[in-house]
């Protein structure tokens, strides 16, 4: 069954500062969509609006989970996660004093995910053998790359239909960035997910994205219907490639 996400005409901000203006985007079932833009353009705020962490002042956000549509604005973060939307936040937000295994078990807190705990755990350990080796270690004592893997795996333990990832590459060495991006693709296929990924590393994100949006100063500046369209866009050249 198909799961998709639609953001329509969303305005949002913090106090007097307006961060998003009339933002619309859609992620169709089974797609990987990249939300591109440099720091401070509103990528994270949009992610937080979808997850109910920041409340938009206008617009609508609709998620269709396995054929049923839900309006997300007004729902609490935990209710949104419970629908089947998982979020890997910026900074990963692991539980540093809990072990790797305990972090993964907490990922399966959602009632629907509890029955599938063992199966999803096996899958995560298969995809990330490193996590299996370190399952007793405290999450806070692992390296940045390992923490990013754990954050991804923990989000998948909730058996989501839609996965949102905020800046998976931040703070990682170049080699780890491309490895993380590859893993996202692998997990997306393994779990049959719909993915929205915010990323400032254009070249890496575009490797696995079906489509993409470029966000500049809180507005969608360009909508690329394919990876090539994004690659050949003047705006991208201006913002990323400095040409």
């Amino acid at each position: 069954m198909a799961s998709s996400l639609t953001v329509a005409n969303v305005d949002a901000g913090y106090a007097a500062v307006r961060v998003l203006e009339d933002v619309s985007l859609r992620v169709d079932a089974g797609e990987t969509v990249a939300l591109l833009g440099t720091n401070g353009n509103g990528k994270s705020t949009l992610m937080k609006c979808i997850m109910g962490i920041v409340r938009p002042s206008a617009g609508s956000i609709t998620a269709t989970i396995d054929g049923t549509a839900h309006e997300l604005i007004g729902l609490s973060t935990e209710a949104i996660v419970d629908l089947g939307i998982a979020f890997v936040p910026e900074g990963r937000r692991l539980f540093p004093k809990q072990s790797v295994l305990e972090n993964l078990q907490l990922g399966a807190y959602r009632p629907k995910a509890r029955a599938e705990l063992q199966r999803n755990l096996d899958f995560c350990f298969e995809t990330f053998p490193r996590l299996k080796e370190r399952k007793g270690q405290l999450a806070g004592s692992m390296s940045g790359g390992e923490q990013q893997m754990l954050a991804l795996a923990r989000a998948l333990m909730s058996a989501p239909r839609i996965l949102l990832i905020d800046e998976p590459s931040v703070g990682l060495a170049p080699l780890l960035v491309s490895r993380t991006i590859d893993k996202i693709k692998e997990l997306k296929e393994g779990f049959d997910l719909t993915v929205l990924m915010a990323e400032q590393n254009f070249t890496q994100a575009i490797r696995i994205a079906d489509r993409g949006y470029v966000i500049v100063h809180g507005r969608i500046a360009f909508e690329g219907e394919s990876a090539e369209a994004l690659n050949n866009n003047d705006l991208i050249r201006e913002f990323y490639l400095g040409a």
Partner: protein
Amino acid sequence: MNAILSGLLLGGFYAAVSIGVAISFGMLDIVNIAHPAFILLGSYAAFIGNTVFGIDPILAAIIAMPLFYLLGMLVYQVYYVAFERRDDQSLRGLSFFFGLLFITEVTLVMIFGVDYRLVQASYIGDKLTLGPLELPFRLLVPFLVSMITVVGLQLFLSRSFLGRAIQAVAQDQLALRLMAANPIRIKRIAFGLSIATAALGGAVLIIIQPVEPSIGREYIGRVFAICVLGGLGSFSGMVIAAVTLGVVETLTATLFGPSWSPAVSFGVLLITLAVRPNGILGR
């Protein structure tokens, strides 16, 4: 030899009165200094059950536990609305619990007076003799009750989804929301459990010694010392610390006189923290 043994049993009793604080202070970051007052409330619940209805004090405590659980949830809700939500819990929250301690104490004085109260049970006064070892039931029963509670709670916290969420709630509330759990609900349940253990703690206290309303104050320092010594968030560390303190206090009392034992136990705390700043089993 018998001093070590009774110290061991005394340690078990200390663990019983510290479990609640190990949850509220160790896992939820709530400095509930009123916990000894709830323990005394538990003692008087056991006292009423014993004198009015003629039932065993432990049984009376078990019957009172659901009420204590609800009381704990209520206290947390007030604390949350008045302090935690406004993000100024540290000092004002402390005065809230300090006030709660005095209100409970004064209420108990007004109802029961300042006389020492005690309970009757068939096993109090008897002892189990194993060769040269003497195990008074007055200490053995609290020890067993305490160990059963600790093991039961430990299993609940490490094996159930709710228990794991309780262990994680103080570390990152937003992250817990992203696991589809409501952190306020989790904390309310955990605080309810913490106060429910005070019913049992109170029953074992009144089995060990007669109580009067202000006796709880004697335990504030000791209970928090045990939790810090063991390592916050670790039940097994808390039990080791409680038993260590029990043995050290009993030995000091036997060898140098009872007035030295608080000094020695806090000495143990200072030395341990100098060597292991996170406590014996702290993470």
